[in-house]
């Protein structure tokens, strides 16, 4: 047994294994890129780069491959074991060791980003303020009092708890502070609501004369709008109320329970900003004689944090960075505004705790390689000098 472990460790720390892993990363990148022709970038990323295993069919037959997540984990193991076990510890190999540590540091930064970073969009009209940003891919259900004042507490159900629901299944949610239970049932992966036709039997239930129609899934998964039927059960009276949740709904359904009006909101997952952004002015330049082609657009905003206001200009290559958040100028609308129609600016917001780790990793790798190459050069010069003498 110990001999098997020795062989295994030898293999895991070997240079040959590192080459195999790097080759697998190349293959996954190649196949993933080809798959984007038929599938959206989000689905391909999930399938090839955020999975442990993938069954690829790019070549016309099923080919099982390790996913990029597994490959990167093994690469990290290889770097750590290879750095501890294989090299003989001497000052002459210090540079190589430092470079390896830098690569491990970079991989760790990516892991931190994968686990903890959030990305979304923030849309603000002129003279309006923004305090939170929304994901373009992930969903959540928020439950809150509809008629209450501000600030208000929202109770959140993450998408992992409801998005995997299959037809015929249901799930009930209960919050200790909520006077009702929420049951989701009859899910539709990509839904379009329509008026129920009394002459035909709908595929799904009818609520208030409206039913959900199932439509084909979009290539880009973020374009799908899921739908659910929801039943709210008052825990004290047992009274039930039914409604429909739809990802593209203009307003959430509201109902009465515990003497208050409540809303259940199926929406894109949103996160709060630790500061407020007010859009003071949006400027949009169009290429002359191009009709409508954008030349540049930028936003004059005021960042308000703890009562302190700071004017900032956010443009295409000049984002706003504050408290670990980065706001990039992403887009604007409406694309063809009528006179007096309010315009809005859209910012891409990224919160990445490991934002600076790649930079530090590169510095460490550079330092390690500099040390290594300097040592090699010095040794070469010394050897050559001795040889000539």
């Amino acid at each position, binding site marked *: 047994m110990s001999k098997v472990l020795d062989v295994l460790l*030898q293999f895991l720390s070997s240079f040959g294994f590192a080459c195999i892993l790097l080759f697998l990363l190349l293959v996954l990148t190649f196949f993933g890129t080809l798959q984007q022709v038929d599938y959206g970038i989000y689905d391909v990323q999930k399938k090839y780069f955020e999975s442990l295993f993938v069954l690829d069919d790019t070549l016309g037959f099923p080919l099982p491959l390790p996913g990029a997540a597994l490959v990167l984990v093994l690469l990290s193991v290889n770097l750590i074991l290879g750095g501890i076990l294989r090299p003989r510890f001497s000052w002459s190999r210090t540079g190589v060791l430092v470079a390896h540590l830098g690569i491990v540091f970079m991989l760790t930064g990516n892991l931190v980003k994968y686990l903890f970073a959030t990305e979304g969009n923030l849309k603000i009209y002129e003279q309006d303020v923004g305090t939170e940003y929304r994901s373009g891919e992930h969903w959540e259900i928020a439950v809150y009092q509809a*008629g*209450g004042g501000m600030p208000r507490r929202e*109770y959140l*159900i993450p998408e992992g708890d409801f998005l995997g629901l299959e037809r015929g299944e249901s799930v*009930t949610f209960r919050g200790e502070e909520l006077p009702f239970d929420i049951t989701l049932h009859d899910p539709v992966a990509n839904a379009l609501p329509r008026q129920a036709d*009394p002459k035909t039997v709908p595929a799904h239930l009818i609520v208030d004369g409206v039913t959900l129609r199932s439509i084909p899934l979009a290539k880009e998964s973020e374009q799908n709008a899921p739908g659910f039927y929801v039943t709210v059960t008052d825990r004290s009276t047992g009274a039930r109320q039914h409604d429909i949740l739809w990802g593209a709904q203009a307003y959430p*359904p509201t109902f009465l329970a515990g003497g208050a*009006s409540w809303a259940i909101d199926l929406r894109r997952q949103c996160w709060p900003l630790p500061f407020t952004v007010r859009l003071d002015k949006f400027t949009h330049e169009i290429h002359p004689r191009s009709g409508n082609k954008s030349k540049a657009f930028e936003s004059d905003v005021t960042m308000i944090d703890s009562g302190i206001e700071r004017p900032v200009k956010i443009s295409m290559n000049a984002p706003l960075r504050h408290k670990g958040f980065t706001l990039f100028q992403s887009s604007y609308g409406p694309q063809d505004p009528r006179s007096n129609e309010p315009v809005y600016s859209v910012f891409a917001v990224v919160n990445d705790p490991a934002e600076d780790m790649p930079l530090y990793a590169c510095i460490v790798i550079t330092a390690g390689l500099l040390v290594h190459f300097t040592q090699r050069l010095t040794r070469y010069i010394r050897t050559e000098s001795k040889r000539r003498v």
Partner: protein
Amino acid sequence: MPAASVSEGPRARLRHLAPHLHGRFFRPRAACVLVALPLALAACGESDGVVGITSSRVVASPRPVLLGASAAERLGLNPEPAPATGAGLFAWDVPEGWEELPATSQRVANFRVGGHPEAECYLSVLSGTGGGLAANINRWRQQLSLPEASSAELASLETIPMLSRQATLVQLQGTYAGGPDKEPRAETMLVGAIHGGEGAPFTIFAKLLGPAAVIAPQLPAFKQFCASLRVADRLHAGIEGGGAVSGTSAGGGPGSESGFDPSSLRWKAPASWVKRPERAMRSVTYAPAAESESECYVAVLGGAGGGREANINRWRQQMGAPPLSDTEIEALPTIDVLGSRATLVEVTGTYAGMGGEAKGQYMMLGVVCVLPSYSVFVKMIGPETEVKAERSNFIAFCQSLES
């Protein structure tokens, strides 16, 4: 620490370098716990198939909510065009000389005023306090290059009637720098009315803006517009003084043409019936007794409300009964309701309900009363024995409706 020799295996080298790490590396029992612990923790979130809601957050951002809206309205399917209600919330009288423009995502009402391209009036609704009176007034002042108002100045502002309460009126004049073309416009006048306050479910902003020479004469029309604002159909009680109205208030609305005013709909319920809490889309809900499974409710929809035939067949479908042809529907009995012949529907069967839960031996009594601009629906549903016993009470209740 002695250097490990090349001939020693990797495990031996590791043991030399980090003996405590080696011990932890190769302890299978510890590994089993590490694997089992997350699984056990994952199972703790559920009990009896119910998932606990454990995450919450305090937010200060307003959320757009349309209280009491039907599913069709919320989902953008409203088949009947709302009569000047702007997203179905309100109705109003359009002052003379004002041109109504399409509503936008930020403006539930939108007008060009006095025929001038730069003179506009619009209505916005924000949840909660919408930022507060002082903040909004001072933001408007800033747009007109004016200094902030003091608390004393804010307290002395005039108020005007708007939606059954007094709204704060602001009149400002200055150089406006907030236009889309970014060009400062001197001699600009802004008249604003803010309806809301602490604890209000939402705050309404009416704003009149444009060249002072055009806006000043429009002040009486603006006040008239604000006074004419009323709650539209199906808005649940959320505005103080509005009450649980079931239609537009009197004075200029479409209902006045037919003589039927949904907001003044009255009825006489049988003495034994018990009133139940208000529900969205319903003018009133009753039950034959406090603990009864049966319910009877009244709903008023604008226009045809989907049509008599469509609604009757939808009710029949809920009861598992086949649809009727137009001829068969014409042959159904009728009763006098609100001065009109209303179709009476009686169906027994298995009630599918909206949650898909089937209830056998149920009965539905329904009345569809189609008026020129509204449709009134009265529906009673419950166990067959209960509803059958209440048939005469149901008909009397329908015939008692008046406005």
